[in-house]
């Protein structure tokens, strides 16, 4: 039993943090909000240079051969920086899905795409059954879409996209009009269901990891602001009403952290508790981040309510991530199903462990 990250994992996190602090500034995010695609090919190339899209690509396909336990800290940093690029769909979901498709007898697709993903030369959008929308379909070189118990690998030329107007300027979501045909089908039946479920859980885990970073950043911004802004002749951060709001947010963020890390472990190892673990992670981390957003806004007062101040960039991230890859309601229902509705008692970490 060892619930720590290795030095290498922490080093990777630090590398990504340093890179994003330098390059993915609030100003950069804002600039992208105002561009047509909202995405930067140049930035994606830089992310590829530090290995982000290659993390889950197997070594033999040109990737780094890591798993979700390495990725989770990286994703946390992307949340912290409010990074808009499609790391979730491409790096966290598509790469391992293609890897698994290869393992189940579809090596061609993986051969074609995994290397390109690792190099940063391909972006993949993913669609799943819990959402009518697909993120980043407009910049995707390939779409992996769910239909009933099937997964289809679809070329961008064969789908019609309708851009939706998303509250979060970082998010670009689309309604996708497409017709599933035999040639695009890459998995079906039991395998299709399994891969769909695993992909969905990977997406939800990735959102949860980003929320950790978003929540922590919101608190830090509010702490900084409260330390500088004076009223009644003192910094507003000396007022207990301000302190306690932010302390409450900190409790929530810290108590979702280990839940998210455990879910990363469950996903990486395909544990039987994976789905429930992921739902708990998504719920608790989202609740913490959206709570932090509300508290941070109150700490800022009116300036936080302006478009000019950067706070809303992170607030809107917290909200959109809360809805992506299963809403809170959906995940809560999934946990409730396993915990209170099932005939057997659910497994409690440690407490339910068997003896030798």
């Amino acid at each position, binding site marked *: 039993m060892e619930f720590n990250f290795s030095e290498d994992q922490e080093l990777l996190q630090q590398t990504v943090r340093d890179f994003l602090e330098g390059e993915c500034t609030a100003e950069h995010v804002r600039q992208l909000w105002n561009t047509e695609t909202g995405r930067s090919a140049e930035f994606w190339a830089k992310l590829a240079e530090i290995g982000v899209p290659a993390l889950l690509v197997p070594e033999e396909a040109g990737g780094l051969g890591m798993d979700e336990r390495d990725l989770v800290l990286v994703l946390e940093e992307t949340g912290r920086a409010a990074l808009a690029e499609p790391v979730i769909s491409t790096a966290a979901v598509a790469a391992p899905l293609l890897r698994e498709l290869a393992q189940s007898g579809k090596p061609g697709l993986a051969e074609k795409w995994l290397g390109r993903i690792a190099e940063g030369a391909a972006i993949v959008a993913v669609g799943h059954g819990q959402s009518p929308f697909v993120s980043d379909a407009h910049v995707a070189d390939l779409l992996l879409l769910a239909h009933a118990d099937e997964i289809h690998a679809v070329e961008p030329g064969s789908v019609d996209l309708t851009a939706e107007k998303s509250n979060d300027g970082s998010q670009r979501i689309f309604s996708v009009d497409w017709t599933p045909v035999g040639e695009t089908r890459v998995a079906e039946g039991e395998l299709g269901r399994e891969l769909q479920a695993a992909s969905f859980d990977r997406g939800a885990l990735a959102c949860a990891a980003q929320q950790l970073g978003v929540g922590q950043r919101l608190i830090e911004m509010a702490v900084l602001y409260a330390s500088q802004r004076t009223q009644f002749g003192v910094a507003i951060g000396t007022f*207990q009403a301000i302190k306690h709001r*932010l302390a409450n947010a*900190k409790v929530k963020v810290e108590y979702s952290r280990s839940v998210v890390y455990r879910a990363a472990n469950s996903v990486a190892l395909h544990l039987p508790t994976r789905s429930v673990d992921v739902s708990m992670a998504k719920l608790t981390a989202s609740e913490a981040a959206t709570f932090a957003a509300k508290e941070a806004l109150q700490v800022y007062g009116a300036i936080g309510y302006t478009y000019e101040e950067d706070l809303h960039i992170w607030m809107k991230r917290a909200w959109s991530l809360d809805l992506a890859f299963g809403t809170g309601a959906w995940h*809560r229902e999934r*946990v409730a199903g396993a915990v209170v509705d099932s005939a057997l008692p659910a497994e409690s970490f440690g407490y339910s462990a068997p003896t030798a």
Partner: protein
Amino acid sequence: MDLTYTLEQQAFRKEARAWLEANVPTEPLPSFDTKEGFDAHCDWEKKLNEGGWAMVPWPVEYGGRGADLLEWLIFEEEYYRAGAPGRVNQNGIFLLGPTIMEYGTPEQRARFLPKMASSEEVWAQGWSEPNAGSDMANIQATAIREGNEYVINGQKTWASRGAYAHWLFGMFRTDPDSKRHHGLTFILAPMDAPGVTVRPIEKISGKPAFAEVFFDDARVPAENRLGEEGQGWSVAMATAGFERGLMLRSPARFQNTARKLVDLYRKTLQSGAAIDPALRGRVTQCWMAAEAYTLNTYQTVSKLLAGGKIGAEASLNKIFWSELDIEMHETALALLGERAELKPGSPAAQGVGDWLDGYIFALAGPIYAGTNEIQRNIIAERILGLPRK
């Protein structure tokens, strides 16, 4: 990251489970807030200690097994799983014991730890005074050095289990001219010393659970001082860290309650009683929070075993477990409907009265061990770095 147990850890769990299964009393003991219950709990502690299970992380020579903190967590899981009695000497074994291990002399360790492990000596905690609650630095009781003794005068209050405890640890002002947290010293005092008067106070449940302790020229030998004279504050902060942090409320306690809550929900549903639909979500939420608390603790323990430290983070724990405990019991009472009014032993209560008792006890959680307002101040100032003034 490896979230599986080693073979040794599994074997340890097996051994603990087997012993507890064979030895845990089949009937619940009376509350340790009564004399009868206090004695019954002391007997249980004696048995636990004879089995070598009183305080597994302590070195063998003091009655422990030299277990590491992970094994301690495993033991706690088994302890709650087995439905074993509450720990009557928790102020001793969980709070003072680790402090003596850190600050005590070899003589003090040998003198106090084994009798603590066996609960031959049960400890009360003497921080609070009538004018020193949250503001603990306002302690006024004095201990003045005379030759090889300290002469103690003043009053302590709210000492849990003080009505029956044999010893008290606390902070006293050894320098009468000192102010605030200077000039305080950590002293261990026998409750039966001449000049010590104990006046039990009934708590909200009507049971004499805590006590006022009056000192009137009570003399204790100078070797009963823990740490240096005038250094009481830093010694006490270590004790408080154990209280808020890992030791006092291990996760299994809340997982156990969460599982009972789920069970209560299912039974209530089966009984056909009307259930507020929001309760299904609340039960789920409680269960998740107990898991979150557990995972967080495992991560903290891993960090400690790797040489890390916990400081102000203990305040995050304190808030989380105390509020979770209330929410779980409130949810249970909401499920019980009118039976929520029944005390344990009431004819129609049929075992559900424990939820009411538990609720009333849980309500004290945000008050004792440093109120949650104080914890929030600590988080804001020491973890987040918000300005003090």
